[in-house]
């Protein structure tokens, strides 16, 4: 028995001296997005620093909060939605970012806060399957709510999040500048007019399946997922009219054991090169203002950041403040 314990102790000591191979854990949302993050952020980061990156996910806010509160943080860098990042910062769940390591001068100031920097930004865009419409094709958010001209199911993001409520208000004639504070009564009244025709998508893959099969011939989608369908050879209709931007953020959970390495990882991910390469692979827009110059112009033309003329920016700070109130109402309305 004693021998066994000694052997174990020796093995443990060996393992810990051999642990110069530090690793950090990155959690994101899976699918093609996380593949691109692995290839264009994690791989160069490991090559530069020798620190390995373990991929984990999907990100789950309940789990996030539980691990911080329990003091057992197993994620070092997490890709979250930006409105959650702002709320989590206020709740004390995040490490403040170290801007001596992360260079924020080049970053789009819309997506920089004390606790979070943009991971990428994207648009909710109107998408449709042309095979389902013989005559006129949909082109505006108003068409999403026009059951006579464009019959059939429409699909929207299921979770309480910027996008669908804004689209309903814009379709109802609210000017983009007058969106906030959100008139929830008006938004839900508008959504009520098509409620029976809505199929909710909970993840990107589901939204693609619904559109490609024609189960829901039109809807509001993450632009990158429509792009991915096109890249696979499917004919997809995309209208950038009033495309609604929102962003993901990179954050560091409070209590991580790898604070410094986490900051270095974020520095790599938000670098001009990291953002440019990720954008090219995902069709989401870079948040580093120096990235567009590094990109192939043909690819850039497909990204949300060239659609600013018709773009509506979701007010992420407003959402962060009202996340719970809107969320409660949103889910109760869905279940009614």
């Amino acid at each position, binding site marked *: 028995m004693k021998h066994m314990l000694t052997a174990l102790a020796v093995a443990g000591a060996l393992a810990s001296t051999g642990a110069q191979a530090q690793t950090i854990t990155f959690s994101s949302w899976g699918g093609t997005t996380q593949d691109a993050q692995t290839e264009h952020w994690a791989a160069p980061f490991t090559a530069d620093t020798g620190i390995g990156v373990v991929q984990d996910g999907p990100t789950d806010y*309940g789990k996030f909060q539980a691990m911080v509160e329990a003091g057992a943080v197993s994620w070092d860098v997490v890709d979250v939605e930006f409105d959650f990042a702002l709320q989590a910062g206020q709740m004390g769940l995040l490490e403040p970012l170290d801007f001596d390591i992360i260079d924020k001068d080049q970053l789009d100031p819309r997506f920089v806060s004390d606790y979070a920097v943009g991971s990428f930004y994207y648009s909710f865009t109107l998408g449709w399957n042309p095979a389902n419409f013989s005559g006129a094709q949909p082109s505006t958010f108003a068409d999403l709510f026009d059951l006579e001209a464009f019959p059939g199911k429409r699909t929207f993001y299921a979770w309480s999040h910027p996008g669908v409520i804004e689209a309903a208000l814009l379709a109802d004639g609210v000017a983009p500048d007058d969106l906030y504070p959100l008139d929830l009564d008006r938004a839900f009244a508008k959504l009520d007019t098509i409620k029976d025709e809505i199929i909710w998508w909970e993840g990107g893959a*589901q939204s693609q399946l619904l559109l490609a099969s024609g189960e829901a011939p039109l809807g509001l989608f993450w632009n990158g997922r429509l792009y991915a369908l096109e890249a696979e050879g499917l004919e997809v209709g995309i209208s950038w009219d009033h495309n609604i931007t929102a962003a993901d953020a990179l954050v560091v959970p409070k209590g991580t054991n790898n604070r410094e390495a986490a900051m270095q990882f974020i520095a790599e991910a938000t670098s001009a090169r990291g953002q440019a390469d990720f954008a090219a692979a995902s069709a989401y827009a870079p948040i580093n203002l120096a990235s567009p110059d590094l990109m192939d112009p043909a690819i850039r033309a497909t990204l949300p950041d060239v659609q600013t003329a018709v773009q509506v920016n979701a007010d992420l700070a407003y959402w962060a403040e009202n*996340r*719970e109130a809107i969320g409660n109402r949103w889910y109760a309305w869905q279940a*009614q």
Partner: protein
Amino acid sequence: MVTIATTQRRRRSGLGMAMPAILLLLAFFVVPVVMLLTRSVTDPEPGLHNYAALLGSPTYGRIFFNTFFVSGLVTLITALIAFPIAWALAIMPRLPAGILFAVILLSMWTNLLTRTYAWMVMLQQTGIINRMLQSIGLIDTPIQLTNNLIGVTIGMVYIMLPFMILPLYGVIRKIDPAILQAAALCGASRMQALVRVLLPLAAPGIASGGLMVFVMSLGYYVTPSLLGGTANMMLAEFIVQQVQSLLNWGMGGAAAFVLLVVTLALYALQLRLFEPRETR
């Protein structure tokens, strides 16, 4: 001869052997559950307001109704389909019965998410089921089979079937087929033999399978969320929304506790009604 003393001794030593398992359960099951329940009366502030909100609102009432209605419907249909299959398995020759068993078990070992996605594809408007119905002329235009009650029911019955078939098979296999001949000799019609003889004998199997299916259905998440619409939202989906999206652990915990109480009550009822008396 086994005396009472030796039985007791055996029981005690059995407890010793089971200690690691009991500790494991305590640490990884009981403690987290108790913590979650505590949050349901402390988060965001102490009191029973989470329960008041949960049980007082018509919206949440509807979610409770959906949960029990869908679970009941799934249990009923599963029992109706499982009974003949279990009967067939019990009287079949060995080889075909083995093959049928393998098919049933194989479906259980395939990833749940994969199976649910497969149903999504099959049930959609351009899916194989709609196309088949159209080609044989039963319908003219595709019918809506997903994102509603039909989709949830089909998906869940499919997943729950083995959990009904196996306990039913266990009970039916022990029934002596001669008993049916005896019933026939006494002048019972086939229907009478089924209702008066076979069903009562198989009742414990139906009860334990039914309870298992019903309780599992109560807490099901993946299938309802992918194949159902929000109009049939079930409690597990509600809990996920509250905890994952809104960080509202108090409300999520309250819903989980109500679910737990209902489950335990059902289990107690089943024990009372169907447990053989001599083991009590």
